[in-house]
């Protein structure tokens, strides 16, 4: 029930970093995904594969080790280290009777790019959450269907990573 007391939106937005067809490549890509602590682990795994396949049209496969030759990306998503504030603790203690507004980094996503088994660079992105935690928000839980979901923000970081690696000449 407490989850229904939260109205949240996430950034980055997809329209800030959409799919760029100029970066599409007819190459293979192997990748691996660690979800340090996210809830939607299996969903994000599928999402990652779908988005990477848009860019690497030849073959995109999951692999636990980098191939001897070729591209490999290890994706690491974890909750951002953050100590709860006094207000957040009060809100939780009161079961969100006391409202609490949060605007903070929620997740960190690292993309380790390997070429021919050598780690070339790690790209780090933040997924930021703005949320209202309040029991009075329960009847308005449906607003969450209209806000930017965490998975869209995760997708936006994938697009940003591809673009940044391309701009640096690594892809």
């Amino acid at each position, binding site marked *: 029930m407490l989850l229904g007391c939260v109205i949240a939106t996430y950034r980055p937005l997809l329209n800030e970093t959409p799919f760029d067809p100029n970066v599409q490549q007819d190459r293979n890509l192997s990748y691996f995904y*660690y979800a340090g*602590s996210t809830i939607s682990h299996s969903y994000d795994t599928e999402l990652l594969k779908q988005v990477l396949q848009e860019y690497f049209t030849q073959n995109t496969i999951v692999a*636990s080790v980098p191939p001897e030759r070729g591209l490999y990306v290890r994706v690491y998503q974890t909750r951002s280290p953050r100590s709860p504030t006094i207000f957040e603790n009060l809100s939780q203690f009161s079961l969100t009777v006391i409202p609490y507004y949060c605007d903070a980094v929620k997740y960190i996503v690292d993309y380790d790019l390997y070429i021919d088994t050598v780690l070339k660079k790690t790209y780090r992105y933040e997924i930021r959450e703005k949320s209202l935690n309040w029991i009075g928000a329960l009847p*308005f*839980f449906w607003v969450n269907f209209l806000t930017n979901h965490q998975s869209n923000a995760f997708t936006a970081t994938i697009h940003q990573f591809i673009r940044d690696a391309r701009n640096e000449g690594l892809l």
Partner: protein
Amino acid sequence: MIHLKIICTVLTALTLSACIRTQLSDRNFPYHTWQPIDASAVAIGISMKQVVPFFGPSRIGRVYFVRLEEREEILKQDRFIRSDTSSNDYVYLMNAQPGRYAAVAFSLPAGELSWDLYLLQKALIQQTVTTVAPGTIGYLGEFILLRGLGMRKVGGDSIQNHYASILSGEYLNNVYVAELLSSTQDEQTKKQFLRVTDEELLKNSGGAWSAWIQQQLETPY
């Protein structure tokens, strides 16, 4: 009056809809079978029990691992990996990359959305360090732990303080120091772990993992 009833009904329906939550877990998918994603993928298991005074040991359901990658202080890694699943007395990380792993903390539920975190001391973390070769299943050992005092009261060693910070985003309630009561890391308990893993977790259908386990079980001590 009718309009008021309609409004109340709609508001109630909306409120109740917010209370519905589908929780995806192994309990919802009892027939899920684990298989390696490729020939090199590994699995890691550990047995951890926390002793609660007057109640005896209780099984720990969530463990935090780190993959030890080269850095100045190897035990202070920046990335943690939460366990995937648990079965019988063991907690697992499935389909991980081969390499060296250690357990650094575990957590227990402390309410609807929060957890109490228990940080392992440096010496205990070092005991759990295990190299897991490609295509195998690593066993970090069996540990029985006692809940120590809260971190705010006693402070922790530098490794515990490091992971207290790294794990602070995990909806934590309280942070405790975990003290070791006993540990077992011999071949007998390892084989018991492998046997239970294959039968109970992999359901004897773990592909290359099951084949590897059978090979290990046939090997004499």
